């Protein structure tokens, strides 16, 4: 589903930015080698702007690539990429002023279930195509059907499913590498002093990796789905992400990457925060 009008506006904008010397590189998508999968592209010559695409294959979250970009860059973003940029700005990983953001509505024909932020939340220029622009304040707390369905199962069934999923994992870390929220210089999964978890695909190591990965992106994940798309083994990574997205929403009324003045929920606290663990796990009699 290529919207030629949007695409030509994107290409034109990219060309102008390079021509005027406003940026040295444009980060966007070009056609991939596999049909239906577009690939990230770093364009520094204005003639190459014609190779940019904006189609159903542009599902990856491009914000990841800004982290290592030393040049003055422009980036073409859809809703979730822009939310990751907001996160990276508020986490002091990138500087807003070093970046030119070209926003366009998400081009995916089958968008992620329940996505309310198809149009970017920050941009220097928005390529408008008539898509609905949601005010951040109108974005409702999200309910995820996969989580709600899963919670209907018994504890044994849930455990069996999760064990089954993580046992597929070959620990290639593609999910982590693709995620814009995963930028630690040294990931807990690879620390050697101490070595927290083994490097094997032993079920225990896999479980701990998956649970901690999900917790490390809790309150920061924007549900772009890149992790799951990157996984070569088809592990259902989004289920745990969705659970924590819902939990953060209901406990702390927070969704990541919507506002540039956000305070991430795990960087702060309230004196009267809920303490669900005391009610459920024994505790105060």
């Amino acid at each position: 589903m290529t919207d030629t009008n949007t695409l030509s506006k994107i290409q034109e904008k990219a060309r102008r930015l390079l021509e005027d010397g406003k940026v040295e590189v444009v980060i966007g998508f070009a056609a991939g080698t596999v049909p239906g999968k577009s690939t990230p592209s770093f364009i520094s010559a204005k003639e190459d702007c014609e190779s940019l695409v904006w189609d159903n294959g542009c599902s990856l979250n491009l914000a990841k690539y800004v982290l290592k970009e030393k040049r003055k860059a422009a980036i073409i973003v859809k809703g979730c990429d822009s939310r990751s940029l907001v996160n990276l700005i508020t986490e002091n990983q990138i500087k807003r002023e070093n970046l030119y953001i070209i926003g366009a509505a998400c081009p995916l024909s089958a968008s992620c279930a329940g996505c309310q932020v198809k149009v970017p939340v920050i941009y220097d220029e928005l390529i408008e195509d008539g898509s609905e622009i949601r005010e951040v304040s109108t974005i409702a707390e999200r309910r995820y059907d996969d989580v709600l369905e899963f919670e209907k199962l018994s504890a044994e069934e849930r455990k069996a499913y999760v064990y089954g999923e993580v046992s597929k994992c070959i620990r290639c870390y593609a999910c982590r590498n693709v995620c814009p929220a995963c930028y630690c210089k040294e990931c807990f999964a690879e620390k050697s002093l101490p070595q927290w978890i083994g490097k094997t695909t032993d079920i225990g190591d896999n479980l701990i990796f998956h649970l901690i990965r999900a917790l490390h992106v809790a309150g920061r994940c924007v549900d772009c789905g890149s992790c799951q798309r990157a996984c070569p083994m088809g592990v259902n990574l989004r289920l745990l992400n969705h659970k924590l997205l819902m939990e953060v929403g209901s406990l702390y009324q927070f969704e990541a990457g919507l506002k540039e003045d956000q305070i991430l929920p795990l960087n702060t606290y309230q004196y009267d925060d809920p303490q669900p663990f005391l009610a459920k796990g024994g505790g105060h009699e």
Partner: protein
Amino acid sequence: MNAKDEMDAKDDRKIVAFLCNWCSYAGADLAGISRFQYPPNIRVVRVPCSGRVDPLFILIALKNADAVLTSGCHPGDCHYTSGNLVARRKFSLLKSLLDFVGVEPERVQFDWISAAEGNRFAARINTLTDQVSKLGVWDRWGSVVDD
């Protein structure tokens, strides 16, 4: 397993307790000094603050233990002002995630126990040990197969 072996196995259950230096550890100390009885199943790890307890510690502890208790100062009483308040958010999320993936709620617990609550500490360990002994065999993240 005959009945006796099973009893022994239950008595053998190990519980790791991460206790903060300023409140809960002192509470455990007071329980000892006051000669309050509690079962020997717990292995105490003293930490500077409940805020130091990374969810990773808890998951790793569960590779070799049947349950984990983390306890710090009551909210408002943290030696470092807010360590336990930051911890509380991490614990809430960890706890809901573990419930979600089907780990029994009794296996991972959190509490606030002050330095003056020696009796409550002993009572807490009694209840905890009791709860854990009633649970099925913990698979230690898949490494132990229930027979």
